[in-house]
């Protein structure tokens, strides 16, 4: 089990690097005039931003298009099965945050600082006003107003349209925050993450802990980048689970943590 998970983690890292590299290349190609299509084209959050315009006027906001919307709908479908797998397997911002998390994690898997559970839960609600403000202004103006603040766009657009000096300050702050609190952007600010959250809570793929095999070492909980207390229950039900499978990779007891496809509960 342990070896198979290691291969899986390597595959995940490879996919993360590949997606980040493709996004960066697309940004540079657009900036140099070698291509007409930039990274925005593949952003599923653009699909949510333009959804209102599509539903009400059958047209798209600003530079968004059908690919954004289709990827967003496909993402919702994916989330209903595989939780927020997009966040840990694909999203370049999630990847960068996770790489920072790996760098700052201390030996033994301890985190630099994990907020108390109550504070952590409260801070996660911050994402809702962030999402509401973005959608309100996008739907009001028809412009993708989030661009200058969006770490994904700032990271990959090669100084794209509407990226200013303060955009880099925001990006630096987001990355610095990730050094202090693991995955801070994803946990407390990401508007796409909070959109997926209720769908993810319904997601059918779940990690199950078999108590008879578990050694209660809590290595799984310490390994979770999102601070989920995996060892605290028999099933990971949290809508924040990204199925990164770091917990099962860290688990020393074979078969204690298993991925299961659950049917709807009565």
């Amino acid at each position, binding site marked *: 089990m342990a070896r*198979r998970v290691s291969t899986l983690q390597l595959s995940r890292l490879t996919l993360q690097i590949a997606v980040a590299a493709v996004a960066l290349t697309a940004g540079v190609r657009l900036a140099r005039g070698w291509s*007409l299509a930039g990274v925005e084209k593949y952003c599923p959050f653009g699909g949510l931003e333009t959804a209102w315009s599509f539903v009400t006027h059958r047209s798209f906001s600003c530079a968004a298009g059908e690919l954004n919307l289709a990827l967003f709908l496909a993402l919702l479908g994916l989330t209903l099965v595989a939780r927020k797998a997009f966040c840990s397997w694909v999203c370049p911002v999630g990847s960068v945050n996770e790489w920072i998390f790996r760098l700052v994690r201390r030996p033994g898997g301890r985190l630099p600082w994990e907020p108390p559970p109550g504070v952590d839960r409260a801070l996660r609600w911050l994402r809702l006003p962030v999402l509401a403000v973005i959608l309100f202004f996008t739907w009001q103006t028809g412009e993708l107003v989030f661009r200058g603040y969006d770490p994904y766009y700032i990271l990959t657009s090669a100084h794209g349209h509407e990226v200013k000096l303060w955009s880099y300050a925001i990006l630096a702050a987001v990355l610095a925050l990730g050094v202090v609190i693991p995955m801070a952007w994803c946990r407390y600010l990401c508007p796409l993450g909070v959109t997926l959250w209720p769908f993810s809570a319904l997601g059918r793929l779940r990690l199950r802990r078999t108590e008879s095999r578990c050694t209660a070492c809590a290595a799984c909980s310490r390994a979770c980048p999102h601070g989920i207390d995996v060892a605290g229950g028999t099933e990971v039900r949290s809508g924040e689970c990204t*199925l990164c499978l770091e917990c099962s990779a860290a688990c020393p007891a074979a078969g204690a943590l298993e991925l299961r496809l659950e049917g709807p509960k009565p």
Partner: protein
Amino acid sequence: MRVSPWVVPVLVVLAAALGIGGARFLAAPSFTRDYAAAGGGRVETVRFVVRGLKCVDTAKQVAGQFEEVPGVLRYVAYASRNEAQVTYDAAITGPRALRAAIEGPVVDEASGQIRFHQFQVVSLDGVVIR
């Protein structure tokens, strides 16, 4: 039911393929403008890929380029694809005149400034020009 962890990346790739493949079913324009009625000639449509046509605002600017071109009937822009579809009366105008209109100087409505080379036609009906 216990499943292999490899089902996760498989689902991720499937979702991406579904999104990319399904996009065409959601195609909708970013901007549309109708011009004067047809003059009775054959009606044709030409598809330009235009460098600089990248959002609704620039799509509107391209629409402005056709205001003074006789024979243009309809303009539909797909900003995410940098695409402009122009329907015209073939007895009055043609792709060459339409391309010249797109690539002509653009008057910025807000500032009144004239901008040159703002739009460049990259391809015409799928044939790459530059």
